Structures are given as C-alpha cells and as structure tokens.
C-alpha cells in the first residue's frame, strides 16, 4: 500500500505542479520520500511536530494548493484538533494519508497501534474517511481524493497487503462494493480485513453457508442506498475491521442498518483494548481478527437471525465497552 501511495503521489505531482507534500520525519516509512526525491522543492519535512504540520498544510491549502500530509496513523491524532479547527472547518483540500494503522504494526507495540483513527476522523464534519483493501485500491483512492474537494483521511497498513484488485480497478468514493456473491450472510470488511473476509467465505462455503463479501473501503461518507443494496437479501451481517469496534466502519454500517434495515449484525474488531508487541499473525489471532473468527461471527449472526422473535438471546461473549 505504502509503495503504491509513494508512486501515485509522485505521478500526481507530475500532473499538478501545485501539489505539495508534508511529512513529520517518517518519509522513508510513509513513502512520501518517493515524491520528495522527485520534487524536493514541493516537499516539506516538518520534523516531529504533527500539530504544526497539520496547520501548515491548511495554510498551504489557503494559497490554492492540494496538500498531502503523511505520518503514522497514531501520530495524525496529535494533529486531530488542528485538522478539526482549521483544515476541516475551512473545508480545505488537505489530504491526510496515514500509514502503520492497526495491530499488524507488530513488534513496536501498543503505543504505535492506532485503533481509534477511523472513529476520530469520522466524527469531524465533512471529513471523508477511506480505508483501502490493497495496493491497487490505495493508488486509485489517492488519485480520487486528490480530485475531490475538501479534507480527507486515508488509512494504510504497515504490512504488505494481499492482491485483491486487478490493475483496471477504479475506486468509487462512498460506494460499498460486492466482491464475491453469496445469499445467506454478508461479510462487510475494510482494509486488510477484506482479504480475510474472502478467506472466511471459503471456510463458510465448506460448512455449507453462502456468504457475500462487501468491500467497505469508504467509511465516510457511506452511500446508504448502495449499502442497503449490498446487503439486500441476506439474513445477517458481519463487519470486520482492524480497528476498535467503537466508532469505526462497523459502527458506521450499523448506524445505517439500524435506521434503514434492522438486521442481526456481529462486529469483528478490537474490543476496547490496546495493542501489544508480537508478530502480525499472532496478534490477529489474539485480537480475534482471523478469517476463522470472521466465519465464526457469521455463524453467530445467522444463528441469531434464525431464532424466532421472542426467543431468549443466549448469553453472548459480552466484553466490556462494546
């Protein structure tokens, strides 16, 4: 994803001579370094000072420029109030592209594992929030955001992403997209969990359950009608994200479904916990973010859907804060 971002940014820099890029001393990790090497006069390393960087971005945008700003997801939150007070309040074309989101950051541990960014960014009025599933979608989404007015946030993982989309794929802002058909349960996933949802679909197929996989790469705004269409006909829904279950994609989806089409939902995500050091796969297991866990959630959701009205809900796995 990050390599795709760096290359796309450099290509956009070629097209738009007014495009500028900022980073906070992490350019070799976020891959804004690719742009920096090509256009040194339009790249500004702001040092380890994210709050200042977000408002410098707003200032540059006020001179009629599209501004891309990058750092790790957790450190964008040091500039959250800046994004909220200036870039977003003034509806400026500041595009925050964050890398190293989620738990697969791995050995760096809990301080570096941002599981709250989607919730925080989604709460800002007018903010667009995107979480692509692979490198191809990242490139297409970055291009789309560069052309879209106003502020935006794009979330990337540290780990290499499995390939999901072919080279011709075009990202459509706001539109959940069905990737694989199925008619009993819909698995709505975002970011790296899209690949895991596709795996879960295979696991479910072996158990005789037909699952549909929907890529919810735009967390905000969500096209309500497209979302309702994407889950039309199924009996239950699972959401899966490498983020807290509080306030992220699952919450965004559930808010729409609760108002427009109440249906049993089970959310897969991190349940009110911090991350910790470990290898990505062991962390995915520890936090319940495996394909098997998504499949299990689908069965739970279906079981709930199958129960008749008035029947008792069995005691769930109730965790605090979810």
């Amino acid at each position: 994803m990050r390599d795709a971002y760096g290359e796309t940014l450099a290509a956009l820099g070629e097209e738009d001579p007014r495009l500028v890029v900022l980073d906070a001393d992490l350019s070799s990790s976020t891959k804004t370094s690719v742009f920096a090497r090509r256009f040194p006069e339009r790249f500004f390393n702001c040092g380890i000072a994210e709050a200042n960087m977000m408002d410098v971005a707003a200032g540059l945008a006020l001179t009629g420029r599209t501004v891309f700003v990058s750092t790790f997801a957790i450190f964008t939150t040091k500039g959250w109030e800046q994004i909220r007070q200036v870039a977003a309040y003034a509806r400026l074309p500041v595009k925050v592209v964050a890398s190293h989101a989620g738990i697969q950051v791995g050995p760096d541990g809990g301080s570096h594992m941002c599981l709250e960014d989607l919730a925080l960014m989604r709460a800002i009025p007018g903010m667009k929030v995107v979480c692509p599933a692979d490198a191809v979608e990242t490139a297409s989404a970055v291009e789309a955001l560069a052309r879209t007015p106003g502020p935006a946030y794009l979330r990337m993982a540290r780990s290499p992403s499995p390939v999901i989309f072919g080279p011709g794929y075009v990202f459509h802002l706001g539109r959940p997209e069905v990737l694989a058909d199925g008619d009993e349960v819909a698995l709505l996933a975002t970011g790296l969990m899209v690949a895991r949802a596709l795996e879960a679909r295979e696991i479910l197929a072996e158990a005789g359950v037909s699952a549909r996989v929907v890529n919810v790469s735009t967390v905000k705004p969500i096209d309500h009608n497209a979302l309702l269409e994407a889950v039309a006909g199924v009996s239950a829904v699972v959401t899966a994200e490498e983020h807290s279950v509080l306030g992220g994609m699952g919450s965004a989806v559930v808010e729409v479904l609760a108002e427009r089409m109440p249906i049993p939902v089970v959310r897969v995500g991190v349940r009110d916990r911090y991350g910790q050091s470990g290898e990505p796969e062991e962390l995915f297991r520890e936090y319940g973010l495996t394909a098997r866990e998504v499949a299990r959630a689908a069965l739970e959701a279906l079981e709930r859907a199958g129960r008749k009205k008035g029947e008792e809900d069995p005691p769930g796995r109730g965790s605090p804060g979810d």
Partner: protein
Amino acid sequence: MAIRTLGEREELLRELARVAARVRYRVVEAIGRAGSGHPGGSLSVVDILVVLYFAHMRHTPTNPSWWARDRLVFSKGHGCPALYAVLAEAGYFDPEELATLRRFGSRLQGHPGMTGLPGLEVPAGSLGHGLSVGAGIALGLRLDSIPARVYVVLGDGELDEGQVWEAALFASHQRLSNLVAIVDANGFQLDGPTREILDTEPLLAKWEAFGWEGMEVDGHDHAALLEALEWAASSERAPRVIVARTVKGKGVSFMEGQGAWHGVAPKGEELEKALEELGRAMEVRGEGW
C-alpha cells in the same frame, strides 16, 4: 510602506488615533449588545490592528481576495470583536453588521468561523493554531513568488500552547522572512496574570532563541508600532516578531489592567460608563459619526 513627508506622517497618526477611538467604541458597544464576549483582550489589540490595516498592510477591501494582498492571521480568536470592528471600519462590510455579533446566523461568530465574512482569512478561537497556518501561507506565497507578507497576531497567554513553538521552529528553519508575528502582550490570561499562571517571559529572548529577529514596542503607540512594522517587513533572512506591550482593557478606565475583564461583557451602568468614556475619547480626537 511608501515614504511619507513629516506632515503626511503627522496627519496619518491623527487619523489612526481617530480610527482607534471609533473602533474601541464599536468593540464595547458590540460586546455589550451581545451580552457576552472578551472585552479585555479585544481592547488591548485594537491599536495593533488599526496600524496594520490603516497604515501598513497592502490590502483592498473592495477586492478581499486580491492575490497580492498581505494576509492577516488573527490567532487570538477571542479578541475578534476588535478584528471585526477594524474590518468594518476599513470598508470590508457595513459597520451596522457589528450589531449581529455572536447572534444566530451572523457572519460575526463568537470566535471567527468560515462564514464568508469579507477580509477574514482563517477560522480561529482555539489558541495556538495561527502561527502554523501563517507559516503555511507564507510558504505558499514564496512558492508562488508573490511578494506579499503574512502577519500573525497572537496573545501572550496563547504562547502557553506548545504548537506556537513548533511553528516558531518551523518558520525559522524555513527562513520565512515574509512572516511577521505580533504578540499582544497584555500580561493576562483567563485565570490571572500570565506571570502567575504560566510565565512565558522573557518573551523576546525566547523568540530569538528560536531563530527569530525581534523587537519590543509599546503596543498602544501608533508611531512606534508603525516603525516596528516597517522594520519587520524589511526582513530578508528570518521571520520577525514584534512583542507589543499592551494594557488589557485599554481605553476603559475600570477595565485597564484588570484580568477580570478577560471574558465578561459590561452590562447596565458599567456599559453606559464604558461607552461614555469611549465616546469622550472620540470627541477629544475630533470625531463623532
């Protein structure tokens, strides 16, 4: 600024005194009518803004988005009644609109929002943002080779915010000689004197340590402010700062130097007394309207 003859300069200073007196009256009247607001820090910054808009900056009220204009970033957003009154005086909008301050639907939000108010460049209200935004604008102007300057007005209490110092480092590192910071150093913040709450002195030494060139000036002396601004605008290497020593509540006897008037609107007899004093000051300047 263009070179002026001695006579022209004297006439300019007389005019600035008249404008400042009118602005002070309008500020207190608007806050009084709104029933809430920040009179202390609005009155302390009046002379700084009046000199900027009426004697120093290149700007065109009839064309607020003129590409070559000097930009003002008003970072101490709570003092916005002063900015609004100065913009109205300068002709950006009808002074009648000052009566809508802090009302529902008004372009004059309690702290500056993006309401399409002509002349307002940036939203403000949460402290600490303006110098970073100003640095970004200054960088953009330099990329475009536009010879305009950016003036950022900050409060001294605002300097508690760490972001200001991130921005100060950034601006000097980028050698933003087209950026000028002006600190309205009235010595107070909401809870009391800045020396007691969180002492930011010595101000000038701090800015200099961060790579800025600076000078201190009496923030109510128009001639001194004008000279300081001319000096600040002649920088070729580094950003420059003017530490303007001011009096909180300047112009209203019972508000001067009183921290309690930070965020309280005068009411009833107090309002009458304040307006009477400010009205008299206008007459002394040979001006009613």
